[in-house]
């Protein structure tokens, strides 16, 4: 569904992405992992067309991204920090997004109800807590049942109950054959969702493996353990190589 070909992007001297090649298929839930500044957000933004690639290309559903903006109708995006016009109500924000997507008439409003936003539609955005804003972002991402979900730190700031509801929703959509891209620092939250792991460091792709492969290599079941072990091996091999 998404094909990334030798993608390179630098900000000034800093190389945020360095010759990345990746292919994401439908029905997969892919975790983007890596330390701060490793290029995860840049990668996501490149796919969304917010960051213009320097070299290489990105193909979504067979269409090369670039000037064409239509491909974004197949993507639901949940940003890391959701900030909205402060004096608008939740209801207005949702209506507004709906109006932008006039062609889309079917709405998936399951999350709005399950996260309890339907009861506070008239509250203004300024009065909301960070977690509630996160909920709004989540609802907006799922509103048009797109084929691809890009979720940037979806569970950060959410209370455990909501977090669980969101995770279930993600799994449900994944099972419908949709592609899901997630970044998160809370690795335990990714357990049970993730099917594949992409690990980035300093703008370079370190590995892209299925969870099963990783579990085989490391012999660990929990994702955080898996990653920790991989990291350890990685650094030793690196040092050996050096």
């Amino acid at each position, binding site marked *: 569904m998404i094909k990334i070909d030798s993608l390179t*992007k630098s*900000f000034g001297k800093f190389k945020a992405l360095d010759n990345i090649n990746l292919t994401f298929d439908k029905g997969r839930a892919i975790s983007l992992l890596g330390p701060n500044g490793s290029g995860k957000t840049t990668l996501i*933004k490149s796919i*969304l*067309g*917010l*960051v*213009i690639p320097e070299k290489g290309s990105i193909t979504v559903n067979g269409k090369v991204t670039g000037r064409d*903006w*239509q*491909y*974004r*109708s197949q*993507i639901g*995006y949940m*940003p890391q*920090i*959701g*900030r*909205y*016009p*402060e*004096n*608008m109500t939740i209801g*207005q*924000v949702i209506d*507004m*997004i709906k109006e*932008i*997507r006039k062609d889309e008439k079917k709405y998936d409003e399951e999350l709005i109800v399950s996260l309890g936003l339907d009861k506070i539609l008239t509250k*203004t955005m300024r009065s909301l807590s960070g977690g509630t804003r996160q909920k709004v*972002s989540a609802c*907006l991402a799922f509103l048009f049942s797109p084929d691809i979900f*890009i979720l940037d730190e979806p569970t950060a700031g959410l209370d455990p109950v909501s977090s669980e509801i969101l995770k279930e929703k993600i799994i449900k959509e994944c099972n419908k054959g949709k592609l899901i891209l997630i970044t998160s620092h809370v690795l335990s939250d990714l357990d049970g969702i993730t099917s594949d792991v992409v690990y980035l460091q300093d703008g370079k792709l370190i590995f892209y493996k299925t969870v099963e492969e990783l579990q085989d290599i490391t012999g660990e079941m929990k994702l955080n353990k898996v990653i920790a072990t991989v990291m350890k091996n990685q650094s030793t091999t690196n040092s050996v190589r050096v």
Partner: protein
Amino acid sequence: MKYVTVDLLRNKVVLVYAVVLAALSFSVLSIDSNSSKGLLSLLNITLLFVPLISVLFSTIYFFNSIEFIELLLAQPVKRTKVLLAEYAGLSISLSLAYLLGIGVPVLIMAPNIAALTLLVSGLLLTMVFSAIALLIFVLFKDKTKGIGAAIVSALFFTLLFDGLLLMFIYSFGDYPIDKPILGMVALNPVDLARILMLLQLDVAVLMGYSGALFKKFLGTGFGSIYAIVCMLLWIVLPLLWSVRVFRRKDL
């Protein structure tokens, strides 16, 4: 766009802006028995506050809504459209505030052509300086730098530019510089607004007193048209530039 306007109209700063303008204009108009004098005072207020408030408020607003703009851009819409919608929403709400603050009192207390011209120049100024704010927003990554640039540009156009112009006139006073002066005036939207307004008041004669070209320029409708066209360019050009930059901008 509709939503940005709605949001901004609820914004306290915009409301305060409108109320302060209204208070100023009511008091100015009721103190001065002579409405043309009152209009001149309002012109001074407009020339001083509208650029500063418009550019500063707009810049801050744009930078604050950067995440929201990102979210909108993740939707299947053109970048240009999002940017122009943000601009339109902002300039409309600031214009409405101006109309409410200056327009209503003026039209109640001194409804005439000059008052209408004051409104037109105030509105044009609002739109010019929101466009400049938009340009600042797309050119600067950092909010603090952006706000700095906004303050500098407001200061530049309200004060520094005229100082430079005066220095120019002073140094080349012995040459026929009427034409260059008129050309240079076009580089400052605040001056354009001022001249546009003065042309409607009989004090324009005082300007005509100082040179044949001014007299010709100011005495005919050409002066007003020139000022308005230049101000429209001051809206369109920054917008076009912003759009160009924004298309290639990484967020």
